[in-house]
């Protein structure tokens, strides 16, 4: 009862206050806006024209700024998030490939840990990124190892010329959640600064049912993370610009028991230090960028119940140079070189594994005089890591007709190098592993139309992946060992629809997406075994989402629906997690007071109190509530 009273108070008090605030007219009310975001990662912009890209809707993102990347990706089509719940590890897989096949790039720098080959989306707070974008489809020709299924781009946007600005966003709610971010920005003609601080903590003591049907509060589930991101840009005459980025992050998480375990004493601590320096020059017909980065992770895992105490540190140094030159009108060439050094120091490894990798890539872009056609041919070759790495070519083609109709086509070869754990795990690591590799083709068709008070967008896409030498861990010679045994065929399609209608000074918007993914095991060591031809585990065939939103006079109200069909948990498809549908509500009010402005909002998550899981026996919270406040101050 006390719980409900608390929830009630969370909802009512801020909204009583809201009614007294003076309204602020939204800029978007007179022009209906389909969010388009600036892209800063140089290779992304215009060099994969035929590939489908998804940006997280900026309005929805504003409700998620104190949360983590996994939350923003969950409602995106074509990607499936595996979330262990309670702030624990979350990963994302694109179009029926695996989590290790999704490159996570921060300003173009890979964030996947060399030991696991994964980036934990639970400790990547959205507050730190100005632009979150999802590229569906293989992109090894531009981004190298790991971008086999797709890539998530997390980018910073330098402050514009506009003086000083200060913003704060805080959010609190059920299960002891408190997330806060503070940003200090400054922009002038020659210099920009962005300082961001982030703090998030939660008890995650939500109710769940254990496998015997007994209702309990999730024990040992607290999580806490904090980070600081400092970014500066120095602009010099003649088109030179220096960028400095420094990010320190720390997270501590108690790992709760699964539904089948009575208790847990496991705990994980993560530390990350990321520093990057870039020098850009933009001329009339040419431009170049050089980058130097150091990425360092530390992961400590302790479990007194299983006598496990591990301490692992990984370090990666990345140096790259990339240049673009316009050969003639409509014809551009790009080329680059990259060096990547990786090392791991872990008490689970007997030695001190290190890798040097070199890569060269080149691309040619042609745009037809009427801008109807845009074509890019690119290729990349990487050397090192002690094994033969395939050459990865790519072709990407876009056609558009006066903005009304657009079609894209792309084909690429992609790969992923074995992780350090695959290669060096004591007694099990397999030094003879080959890179995973595959071909990917995709196409899309998009149309946008405006008529009267209406505006709409419809998009259809299809894809095909054939992956070979997929690494899985199997029992062999007395131990589980990774081997290049699986062949996977993933194919499917998706549809996206946006409809907007102007209503007086306001707007009504409906957005829906649906994806179908068939990803099957086409061969492994037990080719005739019960898993042959079956859907891969944790890949739902059906996935969809929709948002119905209304906004007017500073108010915003939205209902969000998310749904997924069953996901198999056994490779022979004899057991599965049932499908689910989740609802959520968002209500916000923009406000302005003197030179301050901002937004006050309330969220109800899992509105229908659905009992669901994204990973077997890892319960997720039922209906819960959040209240948030955003304050922005700027001075010219």
């Amino acid at each position: 009862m006390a719980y409900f009273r608390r929830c009630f108070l969370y909802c009512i008090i801020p909204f009583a206050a809201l009614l007294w605030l003076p309204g602020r007219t939204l800029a978007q009310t007179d022009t209906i806006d389909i969010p388009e975001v600036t892209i800063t990662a140089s290779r992304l912009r215009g060099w994969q024209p035929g590939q489908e890209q998804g940006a997280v809707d900026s309005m929805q993102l504003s409700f998620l700024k104190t949360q983590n990347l996994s939350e923003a990706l969950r409602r995106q089509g074509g990607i499936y998030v595996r979330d262990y719940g309670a702030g624990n590890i979350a990963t994302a897989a694109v179009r029926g490939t695996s989590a290790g096949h999704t490159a996570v790039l921060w300003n173009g720098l890979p964030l996947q840990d060399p030991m696991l080959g994964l980036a934990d989306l639970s400790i990547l707070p959205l507050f730190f990124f100005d632009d979150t974008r999802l590229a569906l489809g293989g992109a090894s020709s531009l981004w190298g190892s790991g971008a086999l299924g797709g890539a998530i781009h997390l980018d910073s946007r330098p402050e514009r010329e506009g003086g000083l600005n200060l913003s704060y966003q805080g959010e609190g709610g059920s299960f002891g959640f408190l997330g806060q971010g503070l940003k200090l920005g400054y922009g002038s003609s020659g210099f920009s600064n962005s300082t961001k601080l982030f703090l998030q903590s939660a008890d995650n003591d939500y109710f769940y049912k254990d496998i015997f049907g007994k209702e309990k509060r999730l024990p040992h589930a607290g999580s806490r993370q904090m980070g600081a991101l400092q970014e500066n840009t120095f602009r010099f005459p003649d088109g030179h610009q220096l960028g400095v980025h420094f990010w320190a992050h720390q997270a501590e998480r108690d790992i709760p028991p699964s539904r089948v375990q009575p208790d847990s004493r496991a705990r994980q601590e993560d530390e990350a230090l990321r520093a990057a320096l870039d020098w850009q020059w933009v001329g009339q017909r040419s431009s170049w960028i050089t980058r130097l980065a150091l990425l360092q992770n530390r992961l400590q895992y302790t479990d007194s119940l299983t006598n496990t105490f591990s301490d692992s540190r990984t370090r990666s140094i990345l140096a790259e140079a990339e240049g673009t030159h316009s050969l003639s009108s409509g014809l551009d060439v790009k080329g680059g070189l990259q060096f990547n050094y990786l090392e791991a120091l872990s008490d689970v490894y007997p030695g001190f594994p290190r890798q040097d990798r070199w890569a060269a890539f080149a691309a040619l872009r042609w745009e037809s005089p009427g801008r109807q056609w845009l074509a890019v041919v690119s290729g990349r070759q990487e050397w090192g890591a002690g094994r033969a790495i395939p050459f990865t070519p790519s072709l990407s083609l876009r056609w558009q007709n006066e903005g009304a109709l657009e079609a894209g086509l792309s084909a690429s070869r992609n790969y992923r190098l074995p992780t350090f754990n695959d290669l060096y795990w004591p007694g099990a690591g397999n030094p003879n592993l080959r890179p995973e590799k595959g071909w990917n083709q995709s196409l899309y068709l998009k149309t946008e139309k405006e008529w009267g008070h209406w505006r709409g967008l419809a998009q259809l896409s299809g894809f095909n992946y054939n992956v070979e030498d997929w690494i899985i861990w199997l029992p062999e010679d007395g131990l589980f060992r990774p081997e290049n045994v699986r062949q996977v065929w993933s194919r499917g399609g998706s549809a996206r629809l946006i409809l907007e209608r102007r209503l007086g000074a306001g707007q009504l918007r409906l957005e829906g997406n649906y994806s179908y993914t068939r990803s099957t095991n086409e061969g492994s060591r037990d080719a005739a075994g019960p898993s042959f031809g079956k859907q891969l585990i944790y890949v739902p065939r059906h996935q969809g989402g929709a948002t119905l939103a209304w906004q007017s006079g500073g108010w915003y109200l939205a209902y969000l629906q998310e749904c997924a069909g069953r996901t198999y948990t056994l490779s022979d498809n004899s057991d599965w997690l049932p499908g689910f549908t989740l609802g959520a509500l968002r209500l916000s009010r923009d406000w302005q007071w003197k030179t301050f402005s901002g937004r006050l909002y309330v969220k109800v998550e899992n509105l229908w109190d659905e009992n669901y899981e994204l990973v077997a026996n890892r319960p997720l919270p039922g209906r819960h509530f959040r209240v948030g406040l955003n304050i922005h101050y700027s001075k010219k």
Partner: protein
Amino acid sequence: MRISFLLALLATLWLANCNTDDETPVPDDTVVEAGAGVLVTNEGGFNDGNASVSYYRFGDNTIQQEIFAGVNERPLGDILQSMTLVGDTAYLVLNNSQRIEIVDVKTFESLGAIAVQGSPRYFLPIDEETAYVSDLFGGVVHVVDLSLRAVIVSVPLPQNWAEQMIKVGNEVFVSCPSSFGQPPSRQLYVIDAVNHVLVDSIEVGLSPTAMLQDAAGSIWVLCSGDFDTNTPGGLYQVDPQTKAVLQSFPFADNNIGFAPRLAIDKAGSRLYYTKIGLYTMPINAGALPSEPLITADGRDLYGLGIEPGTGNIWLGDAGDYKSRQMIYRYDGDGNLLDSKLAGVAPSGFYFY
């Protein structure tokens, strides 16, 4: 008007796409008859909660799956490591659920459970009131009071991993395999089962795992060796009275499989063990067999049992440990008689 139509269309799409899940199959009611079949324990996947027991009937060669869940209308738990039959009662050790489910074998109804904080592996009755439970990580053997259904004390051991146990007289012999990150282990430890204290140890081969007692009373120990240092294990015969190692049969290589198993026929005179393939030898043989009786042929032979009446050999294939897999019934000469799909990682065969 158009919006409501669209909403209806979308709603229909969701219903069509999201609510297509079939109900989970409900196994038939089952009763286990003495001598009429074999109980198969399926370990399940870690944290998957899909440990189960299958029952194969000899009469019509049929198999029933998930008999515990069928009778008790709830899942059994996670990682069914072992089962011990004591009269008409079965003790099912659920490693990752940290509990031992007590079951009436005939009806397979749950009679209760014993919570064991730690990582329980095997259950051994000591007397009517007491039982021992070995532990994977705790470096202990737990002493359970059967009337309280609780651990009353834990006997510390010099090694982290306590595996199988055999009671001879008032002594319990515990095999302790080498555990990850610990010094290698070659010991059987001897516990005084009256005072619950460690009294002795016997050095055998590297990483002692499976154990059993033959007709003459000798203890046979299967040692799995060490993969890291490329040290082979072997088969060792120990006299529990004198604590002497009577015979040592070191293996020529350490190509032994993920979890080697050891079994004996009803007469207690013929040994069976897995070392990738299945090997057999009489207890009085002077040397290890050179050829397997049954080859693995790409299977992971993870479960082994010998049918008491016929001497038929039962083998379970663990496959990828992430799917339901096959069990196989062979005659004593290694000719395949039958095969059936069981649960996830079929690891044990129990004849009631």
